[in-house]
């Protein structure tokens, strides 16, 4: 968190640079099943984030020695297109991308019934076509939909959203400019039915009360996003929606 450009991120009415309230999500657009070759895919726009997620698998592990005898191996790559950020990014994976690939995988694995597909891999690709702050969270939201679209049995969908701090105030779903000038960033992924936080990172400074409040804000946003996810799936597969509504806990998709 750098704080070099103390521009005004909140106006006198407490509204943000893009006119949002502190607890307001950016506009979100979700699409499911938009790629031809992938077994499952989804697209998310959240603010100016434009992100594709695709799933291949379960498929035979290659090379074989990476297979596990009792469950599927999940592999995940978070990757930014060279043109997705202000200054062109080399396509070679950065340390940041390698770390995010790991935490995104660990945010999604708790949802997948991996023991149904021993000796296979499920490969998950999250491509950031345009990045605008909060891309790891939006990527998780899309990736969970791509897993569902691939027909992979899941406990429930996971949604993710960050809370940040701007001018001393907690604010939901920071945009790029808020993120760069903000004082904290708290990305959270959440499974509402299981009440499990599966991604949790933090940058910046938060007091304990701020953390608790911020966590609650993030979780509420995840619940909203979770509804949107189910809506997006419903638009794609109306029959799957009905099955999902019958059994609520756990919510098994596919």
């Amino acid at each position, binding site marked *: 968190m750098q704080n070099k450009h103390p521009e005004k991120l909140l106006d006198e009415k407490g509204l943000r640079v893009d006119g949002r309230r502190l607890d307001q999500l950016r506009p979100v657009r979700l699409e499911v099943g938009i*790629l*031809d*070759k*992938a077994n499952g*895919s989804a697209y998310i726009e959240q603010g*100016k984030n*434009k992100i*594709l*997620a*695709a799933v*291949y698998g379960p*498929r035979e592990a290659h090379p074989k020695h990476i297979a596990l005898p009792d469950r599927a191996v999940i592999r995940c*790559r978070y*990757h930014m*297109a*060279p*043109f*997705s*950020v*202000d*200054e*062109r990014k080399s*396509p*070679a*994976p950065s340390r940041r991308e390698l770390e995010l690939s790991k935490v995104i995988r660990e945010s999604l694995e708790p949802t997948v019934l991996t023991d149904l597909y021993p000796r296979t891999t499920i*490969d998950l*690709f999250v*491509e950031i*076509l*345009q*990045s605008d702050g909060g891309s790891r969270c939006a990527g998780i939201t899309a990736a969970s939909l791509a897993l569902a679209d691939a027909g992979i049995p899941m406990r429930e969908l996971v949604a993710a959203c960050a809370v940040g701090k701007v001018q001393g105030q907690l604010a939901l779903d920071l945009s790029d400019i808020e993120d760069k000038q903000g004082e904290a960033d708290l990305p959270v992924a959440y499974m509402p039915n299981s009440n499990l936080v599966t991604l949790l990172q933090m940058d910046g400074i938060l007091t304990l009360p701020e953390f608790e409040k911020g966590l609650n804000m993030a979780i509420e946003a995840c619940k909203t996003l979770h509804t949107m996810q189910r809506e997006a799936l419903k638009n794609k597969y109306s029959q799957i929606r009905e099955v999902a509504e019958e059994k609520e806990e756990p919510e098994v998709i596919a």
Partner: protein
Amino acid sequence: MSATPQLPPVAKLEQKTVVDLIAKGNRIDERGHDSYRPITIQTGVIEKANGSAQIFLGKTRVLVGIKVETGEPFADTPEEGVLTVNAELVPLAHPSFEPGPPDENAIELARVIDRGIRESKAIDLKALCLQKGKKVQVVYVDVYVLDHDGNLIDAGSMAALAALANAKIGKYEIKGDEVIVKPDRRPLPINNYPVSVTFGKVDRNIIVDPSLEEEQVMNARLTVTIEKSGSICAMQKGGLSGFTTEELRKIVHIAVERAAENRAKILAAAKI
């Protein structure tokens, strides 16, 4: 090392259908031998890029982003900007694409697209010199394959051209040793519109714009890139067989026709 590719195990029967249809003058998607699949081009889809375009060529989908940055010229062209074309076979586009540095197919794709742009002098590189021998503008063309259903060369080069035509760059001033970027934006200076047309040879038949199913049964591939005045500005043969001289003479004439049609679509999409 370049190695004979391992083709996916496509059912023999399916392969035979593709080949037989072509032998009868037909194709699996009911096109004629000389026809392209439907082409849709969207420009300006990535606001953070200087220029961008997404093409759907049938089910093939390629996104190209243009970034223009300040850099150094090559020693042998001190008064010219730099063009860099990179292609990524993004793993979400096909089960056979794996993460990692570009393989020979990605490199060939990038270099054939590069050749068309460079040899036709599509970009006025001299207009991108800021300070002779020291500072020039570098144009990065990143070709991002998102869904692979065949003929990536044509899809990539058409999207690249549309993205270049869509690109806006800053105005620069040199003060002493520093480069001042001004907020005004002007179009990237484009002088030519090279369009590639790719052919496949299936047994003794020549088809245009092979789909992935057709690529898996074809013996050889030829790309011919045509610039605006109808001359050839790049060629690239691929695949495990070759072409007869008669086939080549026929191909280049078809290429000129198809290139003109596709160029019109690209210019329309880029509103030029």
